[in-house]
C-alpha cells in the first residue's frame, strides 16, 4: 500500500498541469503539518490548539531571512528551524505545566499572542499585508526549482523523509513512551519515566516538523501573512488529524489530503469554505470519532470476519 501510494505520487504529476501539481504540493505540505500535530494529539494525547504558531514562525522566519537578510533558501530554512525550536522551547515550558483542557486553552492563547504580534508589528512582519519573497531552493546538479513540478518533487522527497523519520520515531522506545503517557501518565511515572522530559521533547519535535511545513509553504507560495497564525489554521490542522484518524500518522496525511482538496474545490465554487469546515468538524466529531482510518479499520474487520462464512470454511482466527 505505501509503495503503491509512493508510485502514484511519483508518476501522476507527470500527467497533470501546473495548478493541480500546486494543489498536490500543498497536500504534501499540510500532510507534514498534520502528521507533526498527530504526534501530540494521537500519540502523546495532548491536543494543541496552537500548532499554527510553529507553521507561522517557520514561514515568517524563512521569509524574513530571505527578504531582509538576503539569505538563500537553505540558510533561511536553517534560521527558521532554529527560530521554531526556540519558540517551542519557550512555549513548551509554559504550556506543559498543564494538561487536558487548560493545555488546549493555553496553546490557543500562545498562538494567538503570536498572531497579534504578526498583525501589529508591521515594521517587521508587514502587518496584515504580509511579506512576499521568492525563495525557491537552488539544488546542486538540478538548478533553481522555479516550476511547479520541480518544486513538487522536492517537497515529495522531503515528505518521504519526514514520513520515514516520524514512523521510526513513533515506533522507537521514545515514541512508545509517548503512548504510555497518553494512556496513563501516572503509571509511566511510577515505572520511573521522567514524563515531563518526554512530553517536552515530543512537543519540540512536533513543533520542528510543523515549522518545516510552514517553511515549505512559504517557499511554495512566496508569501506569508498573519493568516498562517490564526486559530483557523490550528483548528484546520486538528480537523485533518481527527478526520484521518489520530494516532496513525497515515490518517493525518489522509485527512490533510481530503481537507486541502475539499478546500480547493469548495473555494472555487463559493466563499463559504468556513461553513463547510465547520460542518465537517461537527460531522466528524459526532459520527466519525475514529476518523477515516478508524472507519477503514472497522471495514477491514468486517470483511475479515465475514469472509470465512461466505467461503463456507471455518476461519483460522
Amino acid at each position, binding site marked *: 500500500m505505501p509503495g503503491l501510494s509512493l508510485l502514484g505520487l511519483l508518476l501522476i504529476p507527470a500527467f497533470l498541469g501546473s495548478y493541480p501539481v500546486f494543489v498536490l504540493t500543498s497536500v504534501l505540505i499540510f500532510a507534514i503539518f498534520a502528521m507533526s500535530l498527530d504526534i501530540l494529539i494521537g500519540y502523546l494525547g495532548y491536543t494543541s490548539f496552537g500548532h499554527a504558531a510553529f507553521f507561522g514562525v517557520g514561514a515568517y522566519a524563512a521569509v524574513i531571512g530571505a527578504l531582509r537578510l538576503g539569505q538563500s533558501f537553505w540558510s533561511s530554512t536553517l534560521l527558521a528551524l532554529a527560530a521554531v525550536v526556540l519558540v517551542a522551547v519557550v512555549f513548551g515550558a509554559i504550556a506543559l*505545566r*498543564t494538561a487536558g483542557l487548560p493545555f488546549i*486553552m*493555553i496553546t490557543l492563547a500562545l498562538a494567538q499572542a503570536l498572531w497579534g*504580534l504578526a498583525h501589529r508589528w508591521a515594521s517587521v512582519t508587514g502587518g496584515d499585508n504580509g511579506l512576499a519573497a521568492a525563495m525557491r531552493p537552488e539544488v546542486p546538479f538540478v538548478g533553481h526549482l522555479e516550476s511547479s513540478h520541480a518544486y513538487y518533487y522536492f517537497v515529495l522527497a522531503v515528505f518521504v523523509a519526514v514520513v520515514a523519520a516520524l514512523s521510526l520515531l513513533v515506533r522507537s522506545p521514545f515514541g512508545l513512551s509517548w503512548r504510555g503517557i497518553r494512556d496513563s501518565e501516572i503509571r509511566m511515572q511510577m515505572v520511573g519515566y521522567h514524563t515531563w522530559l518526554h512530553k517536552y521533547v515530543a512537543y519540540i519535535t512536533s513543533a520542528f516538523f510543523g515549522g518545516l511545513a510552514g517553511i515549505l509553504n512559504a517557499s511554495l507560495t512566496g508569501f506569508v501573512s498573519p493568516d498562517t497564525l490564526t486559530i*483557523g489554521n490550528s483548528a484546520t490542522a486538528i480537523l485533518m488529524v481527527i478526520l484521518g484518524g489520530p494516532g496513525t500518522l497515515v490518517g493525518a496525511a489522509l485527512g490533510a489530503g481530503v481537507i486541502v482538496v475539499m478546500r480547493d474545490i469548495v473555494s472555487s465554487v463559493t466563499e463559504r469554505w468556513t*461553513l463547510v469546515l465547520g460542518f465537517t*468538524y*461537527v460531522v466528524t466529531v459526532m459520527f466519525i470519532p475514529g476518523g477515516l482510518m478508524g472507519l477503514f479499520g472497522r471495514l477491514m474487520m468486517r470483511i475479515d470476519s465475514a469472509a470465512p462464512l461466505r467461503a463456507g470454511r471455518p476461519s483460522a482466527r
Partner: protein
Amino acid sequence: MQFWIVQTLNGVAYGMLLFLLSIGLSLVLGMMQIANLAQGAFYLLASYVGYSVVQRTGSFSLALVAGTLTGLTIGLVTERVFMRRLRGRTHSQVLISVGIALIIADVVLIIWRGDPVTIRPPALLAESVDLWGVRFPAYRLFIIACGLLVAVTLNLVMGRTRLGAIVRASVDNQEMARAMGIDIERVFLLTFGFGSLLAGFAGVMGAPFLSVYPGLDWELLPLMLVVVVVGGIGSINGAIVGSLTLGLLDNYGRALFPNLSYFTLFVPMIVILAVRPGGLMPRR
C-alpha cells in the same frame, strides 16, 4: 494624570465586558468540563442581532433584550443538540464547539456581509460625564456598573441561595449531587444557557464600545481563556480579578506599546502559570 485616569476607566470598562464573557465560560468549564470555544461566536452573533434591532426599531433596550435572548437560545440549542450527546467526552465537546463557532461565524458573514458596524449608545447615556477632572463617556460607566451588578448578584446567588448551592454542588461533585436528587441534566442546560446568555448580553452592551466586525469573536476568545486560566476555573472572584487585570493591561499596553499590545496581554498568563498553574484563585 488625566490620561491615566481615562485609560484606567477604559480598562475597567473593557475588563467588565471580558468578565461578562468569561464568567459563563468559567462556570461551564468548572461544572461540565466543557471549554466552550464558541463563546466568542455567541457574542458576535448577539452583537449583530442587536445592531439589526437598533436599525429597525431605534431602541437600544429592545436590542439588549434581543441580544440576550439570542445568546440564551443559541446556548440552549448547542447544549441540548450537541453537548448532551457527547456527555463525558470533553475532548469531543471542545472540538464540536469549534465547529459550531466556525458555522456561526460564517452565518454572520452571510447575513450581515462582513461590514463593520456599531451601535450608538442610547440617548440617555450618550453624553460625557465629568469625573475626577476628566470627561468620560457615560456609556462606559454604564458598562462598569452593569458588570459590577452581575458580579455582585452572582456572588449573592452562589453564596446565599438554594440555586447557588445546587450549582456549587454540581461543580464540586456531580455524582453526589445526583445522589442528592439534583437533576444534573437540567443544571447543565441552565448553566450552559446562562453562560451564553451573558455572552449575548455582553454582545449588545459591548457593541457601542468595541464595534462589531468579523474576527472579533476569535480576537476575544483567547482573552476569555486567559481570564479563566489566570483567575482559576469556576471562580467568580478569580474571573473578576483576571478580567480587570487584562482590561487594564490592554489599555495601558495600547497606549504605551501599540505594536506589542496584543502580545503583552498574554504575559500575565505566562507569569501566573509559571508560579501558580491552578490560577490566582483556584476553587480547590
